[in-house]
């Protein structure tokens, strides 16, 4: 424990040196859990609390830079990358036929997929469908981070019951319980809470056994834009910083622990009255895949088209149906 305490202190100092110690950022930084120090000695040797004499600052800097150098990750060659993609980066079905065909199977693990669309265009529906799809096939656990109380277990139960007359080998109740037990829901109402949950998740994933059956496979944030809108804009750029940090963290978790991440975003009026995705230019390049949903008034057919994809040409479109 002693060792951890000291390591924490040196970590804090490191953060302070890198960021110039603004209190705002620091509040976030203090929530960051300790990364595993590759070499425990570096943490012990790094200088402890800043209350020491000014003269020793240079020595401290040097040790900090040594500590930074040790953070360098190992390199991979192309063959290893291919192997990784083949064995660890599977494709998770969304449960919406149109989208699965469009995306060549569904949501890819290790990637961040974003769904944008106006109000009531079917974003939450796609999220619930994907959660159901992953849970139904016994692929693993789904974590649903809900920011606008839109997660409805009732709706999922309804979807389960309506499709179960096809191939039911197990009892209706048993199937429902199995599916519903592997969907986890967590309410999040501000960006700091989201960061905290993501750090907790990272910690949890780090310690979980690799081959265990119920590992978390899919992380859904519905919707990420409602957390970011209140802090974005205005004169200071801290809101943007938080947004980018969240994006980076989501992508990191996706890649390192082979998770598929699905987030939803809303749309705002752009030039000439046409709609465009919210969160602006800096967010634009964070998701790997961006899908746009739209729905004609009064119909239950949703149109989905690709705005950005890593391997599929953008502009392709498909349709899927929401049934009541």
């Amino acid at each position, binding site marked *: *424990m002693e060792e951890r305490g000291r390591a*924490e202190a040196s970590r804090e100092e490191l953060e302070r040196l890198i960021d110039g110690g603004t209190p705002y950022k620091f509040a976030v930084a203090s929530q960051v859990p300790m990364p595993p120090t590759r070499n425990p000695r570096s943490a012990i040797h790094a200088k402890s609390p800043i209350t020491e004499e000014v003269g020793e600052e240079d020595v401290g800097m040097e040790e900090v830079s040594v500590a930074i150098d040790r953070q360098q990750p190992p390199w991979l060659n192309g063959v290893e990358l291919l192997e990784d993609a083949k064995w660890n980066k599977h494709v998770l079905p969304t449960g919406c036929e149109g989208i699965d065909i469009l995306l060549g199977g569904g949501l890819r693990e290790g990637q961040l997929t974003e769904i944008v669309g106006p109000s009531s265009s079917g974003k939450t529906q796609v999220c619930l469908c994907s959660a159901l799809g992953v849970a139904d096939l016994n692929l693993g656990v789904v974590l649903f981070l809900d920011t*606008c109380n839109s997660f409805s*277990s009732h709706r999922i139960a309804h979807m389960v019951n309506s499709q179960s007359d096809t191939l039911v080998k197990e009892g209706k109740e048993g199937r429902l319980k199995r599916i519903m037990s592997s969907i*986890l829901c967590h309410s999040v109402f501000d960006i700091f809470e989201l960061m905290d949950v993501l750090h907790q998740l990272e910690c949890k994933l780090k310690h979980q056994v690799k081959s265990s059956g119920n590992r978390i496979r899919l992380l859904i944030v519905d919707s990420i834009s*409602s957390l970011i*809108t*209140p802090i974005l*804009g205005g004169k200071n750029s801290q809101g943007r910083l938080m947004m980018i940090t969240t994006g980076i963290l989501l992508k990191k978790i996706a890649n390192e622990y082979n998770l598929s991440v699905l987030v939803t975003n809303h749309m*705002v009026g752009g030039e000439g009255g046409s709609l465009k995705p919210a969160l602006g230019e800096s967010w634009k390049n964070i998701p790997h895949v961006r899908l746009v949903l739209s729905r004609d008034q009064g119909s239950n057919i949703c149109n989905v088209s690709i705005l950005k994809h890593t391997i599929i040409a953008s502009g392709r479109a498909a349709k899927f149906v929401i049934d009541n």
Partner: protein
Amino acid sequence: MSETSRFRSTEGSHGALKGAQTAWDMLSEEQMQKHITTGCEELDAILGGGIHCKEVTEVGGVPGIGKTQLGIQLTVNVQIPVECGGLGGKAVYIDTEGSFMVERAHQIAEGCISDLLDNTAHRLKDFPACPERLQPNSFLSNIFYFRICSYTEQIATINYLEKFLEEQKDVKIIVVDSITFHFRQDFDDLALRTRVLSGMSLKLMSFAKKYSLAVVLLNQVTTKFVEGSFHLTLALGDTWSHACTNRIILQSV
């Protein structure tokens, strides 16, 4: 959170994320949950049994359509005692337009009580304590009324509610009549308005979840020009349209 407690929370096999719940648990909780009736069967049917707790419902309509009426009705209906199939809760009414009429609330309470006595008299025999509670004045005393005169006051009140709800655990509904009014009057910076409003809606969402209460936001309407014709839509723009769980619009036929 300290490092040790974080490790402890990750020990379990799964579901160990602090504050997370499985959908299975939520489903059984949801099935137990009673809804607040609007007093109109058809409207209840559209809403899936009435106004749901833990959700934010937005109601819009042209002036005079009965938004405030519905708001007052809900503050009364939420107090229907548990023995009569209600929630037996209390209500918070945030009035920005000054349209809350206490005489009307008294009338509605009287109407509600006489309905209850007619329909559930046989059930009430078993609960002798009820008649004293079934008085219009006791209904009125359980409505907490805030009169808001500027958007600053509105922000402050929403922030204060956090403390208020901590003390008054019985509150089962918050009605804001209307969420729009001050923000449509004297607010030039639209980007700032969006930020303030979305922050406010997140706050209300968190109350709804934390105290398992219903939030009803009354909103004004505006017309929107889409594909050559005008449509009636709820005010406050596209970003706001994502802020609520349910949105309904009242129209006369």
